[in-house]
């Protein structure tokens, strides 16, 4: 069974290699090194040539599907950002991955919506989350966050709990603004109700205190319910 899978992978990988060779013949220095991992091939492309490379992939080499397009933040490296294109050929039945690096000072790259219209929303998401601008995109606006949101949440220097921001409400301003979420030492690290007594003694805010609600009677309720502490239950 393993042999069969391997054979399929290698034949698909060879088809991808053939496509890469044809691209190299056409673009030469614009293409960087190729990486192979388990029969899948990744090709580095100069950001300035991405649209031409993609157009050739689609119109001459039969890569008719864009499976995914995403941004990557290599925080601390230069160039910082990377756009990854996962393309597929339904005629050759093989995958190919393109990668293009762009700098932090000018996170701009050509849009490939004119090649694959399916890239439209993916590019909008990469713009929304990383602040990568796709020139030539027909409708480059935020897709998940609201218009006017000042940050790019998937950048590595953006805290998970968020940053304060204005919240343009359709109703009255009582809906308030975006607050930083209480992380309590990290995501998914929360003191349970069991620990209320112990954590208060150590001076840390208990889960009841930490919640931004009027739970003044909640602690009393817990006492009333006779919730055992960890030690008692052991």
């Amino acid at each position: 069974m393993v042999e069969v899978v391997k054979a399929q992978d290698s034949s698909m990988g060879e088809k991808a290699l053939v496509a890469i060779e044809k691209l190299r013949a056409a673009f030469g220095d614009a293409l960087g090194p190729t990486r192979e991992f388990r029969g899948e091939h990744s090709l580095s492309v100069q950001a300035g040539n991405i649209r031409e490379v993609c157009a050739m992939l689609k119109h001459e080499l039969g890569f008719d599907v864009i499976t995914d397009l995403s941004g990557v933040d290599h925080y601390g490296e230069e160039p910082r950002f990377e756009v990854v294109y996962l393309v597929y050929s339904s005629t050759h039945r093989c995958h190919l991955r393109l990668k293009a690096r762009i700098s932090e000072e000018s996170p701009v790259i050509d849009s490939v919506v004119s090649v694959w219209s399916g890239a439209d929303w993916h590019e909008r998401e990469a713009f929304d989350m990383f602040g990568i601008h796709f020139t030539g995109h027909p409708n480059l606006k935020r897709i998940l966050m609201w218009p006017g949101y000042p940050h790019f949440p998937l950048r590595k220097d953006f805290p998970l709990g968020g940053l304060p921001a204005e919240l343009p409400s359709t109703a009255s301003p009582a809906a308030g603004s975006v607050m930083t979420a209480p992380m309590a030492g990290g995501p998914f690290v929360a003191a349970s109700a069991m620990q209320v007594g112990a954590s208060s003694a150590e001076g840390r805010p208990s889960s009841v205190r930490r919640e931004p609600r009027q739970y003044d009677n909640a602690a009393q309720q817990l006492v009333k319910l006779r919730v055992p502490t960890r030690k008692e239950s052991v």
Partner: protein
Amino acid sequence: MELVKPFGTSPEGNDVIVTRLDAAVDWVRKNSCWPMPMGLACCAIELMAVGATRFDISRFGMEVMRFSPRQADLMIVAGTCVYKMAGVVQRVWEQMPNPKWCIAMGACASSGGMYRSYAVVQGVDRFLPVDVYISGCPPRPEALLEGLMALQRRIGNEAAVSDLRSEAHHPPGNIPQGPILIQG
């Protein structure tokens, strides 16, 4: 068969029941809460279960789900509320006529749940006056029914007319009697 005549008979011969106006209005209100199902995530599935035959919300006069806020008086926020949705939820709430009540169903609506995230409102009580919090992820349908019944008890004890709660708008986190906490 003779009808029960607890408080006597009017000059015209019709039956008369004497009660306080508050009690009469409360009795009407608490048994005809029309919910606005603000289903935002998976809790809405449990909300639908509550509306279906097995759990049968209609036993409490609450089966009339109204998708127009103008015909609803109980908003059940069921699910994760992201900031982008908060303005919409608040607008729907403000379109509901007074008197109105609010249930935060599940962990997300109550506190943001497991989503300690830049995108999720850490509890809808940041912008809605929540009467009942129901824990659980999602809560069992029985827990929602318990919350509904607890709310009915509260509505039944309000001074509906003399206090004219209907005129008072309670800001977030300022429910006079304090919130009801239901263990889901």
